[in-house]
């Protein structure tokens, strides 16, 4: 398809590729087992009736076919390495290569979680160093690295809130959650046995202080607040919010999804947050991996420390150990110590940056978002005029007159060589278009993105059908998601012969 406005991308041939099962043929192999240095045993004799009689019908393919299969599949993905990936609240930043290299060092990737402490000092030192640095970055007093993801961190954090309040005599009943919050927040509160009470935002996109004042009472355990929130707005009343909660014995939980706006510029511990989680896969550059693994450490103030998941790391005379003797602990949230491989990467990232690099990173992230905002303001409706930090939320209001929704514009961005922004979120904005460029985008890429968005806005007026039927240059056109849900096909099956 010819279109002079599309400057970032051109179409090119991509390879077709079936399912790996469709390459399988009996007798092909991609392995050679080692020579066995002990006597063989008779499996039927060893296992008796527990023996598997029919092998699992896994594919039988050769090594070159495996390489081609996954290489071909990979070319069907868009990735940060291709270009701007402006998914709001996802912080799709560059994933440094040194992180990957050090996480794969033999003594690190090969360490068994139950090997004795005296031969785990390196692993424990990595965890201790990361813990110390994250505590300094957040301004909190203590931390656990155990949670495996952001939502898992939320669960841990709210469990800490509950355990603390129970120790004070009353766990309370409700958790307040702003209407702009991520869906994991209410789902988490429910898992910890709390009722969820919605908290209204005001016209500026911030917490409605009067509503908070009215809703806060001794039945409320706390507030789960994302700051900056999902509109990219830093709630300047944060000090007051914390004060209202604390005055009535509640706690302030901060969802750290948007910490990329704050690192080295402000610390949640300084503005009244009692407990928060971090997403190492957002703020600290560990790769998203196509949807995990993540890592969601939880940092807290001193009064919540006794309740942290066990074990915690302790140090005496330069020797590190795991301390399991934590009578008030909420227990474990995961086996072993969490997603250790992500700790290695996050620490390598912090070391590569240092205090000056982290500050510049945050400044660039905020600079990029404000640049995009400035350049697209007017072309797209900006529902909140409040200053934005690291991400900006527009709406499809202007384009919806021509019947185009945020999802259509997003699909058309694909033709322009970009991954779409976050579509239809936060829910407080009708037709939301949530854009987070991160610090990793050069000016050149931002300008291409801005031009693409403007060109699409123009198309929305001149050729709305072109936008509505996008994408046009992908391997597949829009997929039938309704059919997928109505009659789920969740696994491959050989064709009936």
């Amino acid at each position: 398809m010819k279109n002079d406005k599309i400057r970032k991308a051109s179409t090119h041939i991509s390879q077709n590729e079936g399912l790996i099962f469709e390459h399988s043929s009996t007798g092909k192999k991609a392995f050679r087992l080692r020579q066995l240095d002990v006597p063989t045993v008779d499996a039927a004799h060893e296992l008796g009736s527990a023996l598997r009689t029919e092998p699992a019908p896994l594919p039988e393919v050769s090594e070159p076919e495996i390489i081609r299969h996954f290489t071909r599949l990979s070319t069907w993905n868009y990735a940060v390495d291709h270009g701007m990936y402006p998914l709001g609240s996802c912080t799709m930043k560059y994933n440094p290569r040194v992180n990957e290299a050090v996480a794969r060092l033999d003594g690190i990737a090969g360490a068994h979680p139950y090997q004795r402490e005296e031969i785990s000092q390196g692993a424990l030192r990595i965890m201790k160093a990361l813990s110390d640095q994250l505590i300094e970055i957040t301004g909190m007093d203590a931390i656990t690295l155990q949670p495996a993801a952001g939502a898992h961190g939320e669960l841990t954090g709210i469990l800490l809130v509950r355990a603390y309040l129970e120790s004070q005599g009353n766990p309370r009943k409700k958790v307040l959650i702003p209407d702009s919050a991520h869906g994991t927040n209410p789902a988490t509160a429910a898992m910890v046995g709390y009722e969820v009470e919605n908290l209204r935002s005001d016209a500026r996109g911030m917490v409605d202080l009067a509503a908070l004042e009215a809703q806060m009472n001794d039945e409320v355990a706390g507030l789960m607040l994302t700051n900056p929130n999902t509109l990219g707005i830093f709630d300047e009343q944060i000090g007051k919010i914390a004060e209202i909660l604390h005055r009535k014995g509640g706690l302030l939980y901060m969802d750290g999804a948007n910490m990329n706006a704050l690192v080295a510029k402000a610390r949640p511990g300084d503005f009244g947050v009692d407990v928060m989680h971090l997403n190492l896969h957002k703020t600290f550059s560990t790769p998203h991996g196509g949807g995990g693994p993540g890592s969601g450490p939880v940092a807290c103030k001193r009064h919540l420390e006794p309740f942290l998941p066990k074990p915690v790391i302790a140090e005496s005379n330069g020797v590190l150990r795991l301390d399991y003797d934590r009578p008030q602990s909420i227990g474990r949230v995961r086996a072993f110590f969490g997603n250790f491989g992500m700790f290695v990467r996050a620490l390598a990232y912090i070391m590569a940056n240092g205090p000056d690099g982290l500050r510049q990173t945050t400044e660039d992230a905020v600079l990029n978002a404000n640049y995009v905002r400035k350049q697209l303001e007017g072309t797209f409706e900006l529902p909140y005029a409040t200053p934005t930090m690291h991400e900006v939320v527009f709406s499809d209001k202007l384009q919806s007159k021509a019947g185009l929704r945020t999802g259509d514009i997003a699909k058309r961005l694909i033709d322009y060589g970009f991954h779409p922004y976050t579509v239809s979120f936060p829910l407080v904005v009708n037709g939301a278009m949530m854009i987070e460029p991160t610090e990793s985008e050069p000016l050149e890429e931002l300008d291409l993105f801005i031009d693409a968005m403007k060109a699409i806005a123009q198309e929305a007026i001149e050729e709305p059908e072109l936008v509505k039927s996008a994408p046009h240059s992908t391997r597949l056109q829009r997929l039938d998601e309704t059919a997928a849900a109505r009659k789920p096909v969740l696994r491959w099956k050989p064709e009936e012969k």
Partner: protein
Amino acid sequence: MRYLPKSPAERRQMLETIGAGSIDELFAPIPAEFRLNRDLNIPRQMAESEIVDWFRARAAENGNGYQILLGAGAYNHYRPLVIDSLISRGEWFTAYTPYQPEIAQGTLQAIFEFQTMICELTGMEVANASMYDGSTGAAEAVMMAMRVTGRHHAILARSVHPEYREVIATYAKYQGLPLSEVAFGENGRVDLAALDAAITDQTACVLIQSPNFFGTIEDVAAIAGVVHAKGALLVVSIAEALSLAIVRPPVEADIVSLEAQSFGVPLSYGGPYAGVIATREKFLRQIPGRLVGQTVDREGKRGFVLTLSTREQHIRREKATSNICTNQALVALMVNIYLDVYGREGLRGLAEQNLAKAAYARKALGARGKVLFEGAPRFNEFVLQTAEESGELSHRLAGHGIVGGFPLRKFYPELGNASVWCATELTSREAIDAAADEIKAVGSVAAADCCEVKK
């Protein structure tokens, strides 16, 4: 800073466009009292070579290159090189969750293949796109059983991984889900009579692990008979996924929670790993986590999408099946590649080698102590009771470059000086013999006289 693609002039130009006099103007929304006006107190910026040096030094402080005779939920199997070669492509590891299927077909198809393989290995009808790990997967499986049955009590076998049980206890605490435990018998398997007595009409599920924490393979069919007779569900947790290549799959289970780490995932001091939940089709709507389904595009071409998301937190919020958002896509990709490398024949061959190594180790080590739980089959782990304290032995073995078994005293004091040992295809005969010799060197007391199971 080398990750930041901007010159000072470009920054100035952008500020000018925005109409800001300085970068700090953009941070004005943060009240002055909360702005950090100093450097963070963290180490200075380091060169790449300095970072590599630092981590190499840390790696050397771990048991680097040791022979590992330890499993207990994390297994030392060989990882074919093609895995890291492939997953190091940026298209895999720098992509996000596949929300835009037109430009995420690679990830989606890979997950669909993964779901298929998990079904084939476990004998279940559907599998999800992965969970954080085996412990949280087991907890989610128990919650799922509660939703399916509408009952509010769960029984955990004491032979389930102790840390899995701890995680489940944490998850269950505020779900109105009392937990109880059922004992193991002389052969290390779940005590069927005790189980039968423990199940009430409020029991949503019974969770067992097979092979269990002692390495013993449970009689899943018999347990299922007892559990189903009382209208409860059977949840089977599997920590050593490779066992599925040679051990009869738990087809009688209602939910299988698998830890897939054995399939090509590095030990990495405990994570990231990948859990996965597999179940029967009729329970599909209660499964937590992402699911990938097959569909067609406008031209009828086969493609894949995330599906059945009405179960999930971003739609259902506090009524979701779980708060889980992320899964372990890249780890699931490792598993997919691993299973393609070994395939139908290789996985079986590998399992046979594990069986042989463990049988040899059981015999060699058993000559210096007492192997517990005879009379039931095992895969690649077994429990050995020794004359001396397990920790002492492990400490000495470490001096010989060997990572010894997992001491059981902390969780099972009644077993005395017992450890659970593991041998995989990577465990050398030499290391097994060396470990056995070390036991002998101290065990001057005749093993049989001192190693009784204390009940």
